[in-house]
């Protein structure tokens, strides 16, 4: 979903740039509560993994493809504020070094994939976690639903930005239908990859998963008597 330069006009790009800068600034302060000596290396690895996974486009039908955005994945593994930082670094490196996503569009891309992607993924995950059984087995499915929804929501926000500042005279409704339709399919891929990765990390090191923190604290040692 990397927006190139030119799709959106200057005022819209400046506005998303301001939003992105504000969110990154806030995330730099809030991430402190999510990161310690053990989880800080995890944040670097999650960002590196998302960069790698974003290179793996999977086909989603008639001549189009999608790749992991990673918002829900990052939010669940390292926390939402750290997730915003991870996605921002990924998008920065992609924009500056790989020419993937524009330079004036960097704020737009951070807004869409960083703020909206991570935010939607985390809010849906947190909502589901509140109603699902408080077990480690709930973490990956809840993350998957967050991932599934985060992609069409980000596509919707792109459409809104396009309606405000699109540089080509295209009907907003047409863009909306196409964007949400294709990105719902991509969201299915996002959900599958997110469930696999979160599931694997929860199985190997649940103590490193931010979204599983409360679940581990509640797991106490117990002495069981063997059945006679």
């Amino acid at each position, binding site marked *: *979903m*990397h927006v*190139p*330069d030119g*799709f959106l006009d200057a005022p819209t790009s400046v506005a998303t740039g301001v939003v992105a800068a504000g969110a990154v600034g806030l995330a*730099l*302060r809030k*991430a*402190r*509560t999510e*990161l*310690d*000596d*053990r*989880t*800080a*290396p*995890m*944040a*670097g*690895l*999650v*960002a*590196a*993994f*998302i*960069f*790698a*996974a974003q*290179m*793996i*486009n999977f*086909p989603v039908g008639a*001549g*189009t*493809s*999608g790749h992991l955005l990673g918002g829900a994945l990052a939010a669940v593994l390292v926390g939402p504020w*750290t997730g915003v930082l991870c996605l921002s*670094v*990924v998008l920065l490196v*992609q*924009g500056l*070094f*790989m*020419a*993937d*996503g*524009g*330079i004036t569009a960097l704020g737009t891309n951070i807004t869409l994939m960083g703020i909206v992607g991570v935010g939607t993924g985390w809010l849906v995950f947190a909502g589901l976690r509140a109603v699902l059984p408080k077990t480690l087995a709930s973490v990956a499915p809840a993350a998957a639903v967050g991932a599934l929804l985060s992609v069409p929501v980000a*596509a919707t926000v*792109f459409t809104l930005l396009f309606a405000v500042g*699109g*540089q*080509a005279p295209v009907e907003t409704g047409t*863009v909306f239908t*196409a964007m949400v339709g*294709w990105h719902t399919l991509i969201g299915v891929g996002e959900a599958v990859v997110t469930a696999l990765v979160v599931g694997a990390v929860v199985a190997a090191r649940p103590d*490193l998963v931010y979204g599983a*923190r409360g679940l581990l*604290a509640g797991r106490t040692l117990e002495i069981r008597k063997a059945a006679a």
Partner: protein
Amino acid sequence: MSRRFFAVFLLVALVLAGVGSYYASSHPDGLEYVAEKTGFLDSAEDSPVADGPFADYQTSGVEDERVGGGLAGVVGVLLVLGIAGGLAWAVRRRTPSAPEAERELEDTNL
């Protein structure tokens, strides 16, 4: 021990970017496809860094796409790891988290 877990995680990322990316679908992504179909793709402009050494996930000067793409991927993974990891390390809390302190307590009790 976290070190082995982190090493495996990094290895997966490096293999995906360095090797797996060659086999990725080359179809346009969702946004590019929609832009083309609905008619706003032409408003896209080339990135100012479109001539950079790793533009479009290729390495300038490397003819072989598999090698050039893999190299760009590995460089990208290491750049992201360094910047994001460094940032996270810089803003981290300097005292151990509550769950960790509890676990250490449990360890001493056992």
